[in-house]
């Protein structure tokens, strides 16, 4: 279910690191909680993000949810496809539904994130 080469947060974001950049999305657990996603508000490319700063908003039919930056750095790219197809977040949350890429400023921040086994345990604890 959850890719084992990703990092995870308690806010249910996933982070995939490659070449000094972190791709960020929300997990399958998060998209199920939100329900049908109908709008994703994305930041500008080039914006500087602090650790845990709100970097955008996901709106489903019934709820609004902030996306928090799991690392600090500069926004390198956003998933423009979500403007027309926000449903990708539901259909393929760990792939086509990625949200943005951040140029990592401080790789040490990754140590604060959860591994897949830690995240699965965390989610198990929530699903009572």
């Amino acid at each position, binding site marked *: 279910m959850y890719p084992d080469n990703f990092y995870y947060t308690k806010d249910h974001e996933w982070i995939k690191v490659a070449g000094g950049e972190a791709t960020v999305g929300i997990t399958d657990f998060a998209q199920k909680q939100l329900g*049908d996603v109908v*709008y994703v508000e994305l930041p500008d490319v080039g914006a500087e993000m602090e650790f845990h700063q709100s970097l955008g908003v996901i709106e489903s039919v019934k709820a*609004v949810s902030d996306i928090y930056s799991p690392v600090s750095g500069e926004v390198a790219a956003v998933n423009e496809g979500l403007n027309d197809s926000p449903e990708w977040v539901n259909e393929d949350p760990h792939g086509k539904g990625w949200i943005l890429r951040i140029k990592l400023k401080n790789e040490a921040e990754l140590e604060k994130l959860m591994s897949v086994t830690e995240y699965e345990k965390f989610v198990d604890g929530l699903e009572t």
Partner: protein
Amino acid sequence: MKKTRLHNNHIKLNGKMVEFFGWEMPVEYSGIIEEHLAVRNQAGLFDVSHMGEILVLGPQALDYVQHLTPNNAARTSPTKAQYSALTTPKGTFVDDLLVYCLDENTYLLVVNAANADKDFAWIEKNKAGFEVEVKNLSDDYSQIALQGRNAQDILKNLNDLPLDEMGSFAVAHGEVAGIPSMVSRTGYTGEDGFEVYTTSATPGVIWDALIETGESYGIKPVGLGARDTLRLEACLMLYGNDIDDTTTALEAGLKWLVKFKKGDFLGREVLLQQKEEGIKKRIAGFELIDRGIARSHYPVYIGEEKVSEVTSGTFSPYLKKSIGLTYLPMEYTEEGTEIDIEVRGKRVAARVVPLPFYKRDY
């Protein structure tokens, strides 16, 4: 938390259960958009057993219902229900409701779940001088709503009621899937459809039969999430959002349910005065021009002036745009008027559009 008698049916169908005013109810099964579109295009089945049912009985039952509500309850009969309201002496809403005449001495008022206790207390409190008894039967009744263009074709397989002859708001009594029921051609989605009431201990028999029979007609179970988006597209008011004890039927675009000629009722004087002087604000529909979603309580601006708040707002699954309702000063209610909605600190452009947002074409 209270459970309806259909609780296990929802679990079986993978309903995502949430708390709703003290009730554990399904918010969605397969997804709000899919369920919403099933109701618009085929059919949907809703458990609305959380609704309140209050019985008024006695020789003066009709007189009392006439006193409590602005519509003319004398027009109801055992074969005809009516949409109406409970009004305060100020002409504002205690609730909106459906009035069913079971017989000349017995009226059933179907009210919002969130208001059932408040309404019961209100109806008890105001009965002095009327020879009536009031009973809260909310826990006895189950209510199942079958909505959508295929509703009649599905329901006709399960009973001998004269569905063909039933117009809007018609009522019939009889068995549905063998369970004694009251059936009315009513609903809260903007589609054709029926609501089935029963005090049977096993309403699940009706639910299962409708799901099974409806399968080939594209029926889907529908949760509270899509119930809200459906009713908003059809511009059906939600108490607590669009109407409450600060708004009147005239302001809410429900002038048609206020019958001044029927005689006195709570709030009549104030409403009559409001009608003669003209209302100062009226409910208006808007759609967003810019991207975003307007939600309940977001501020509404005209220029630099905050004029109101959004009462209901959502992404419309059928129209595929952001829509909402708000009360606007009369001079701004004209179609095309540009307004701004403040969405999380940012102004988003919107325009006033005609209501309802959605009207069925059959």
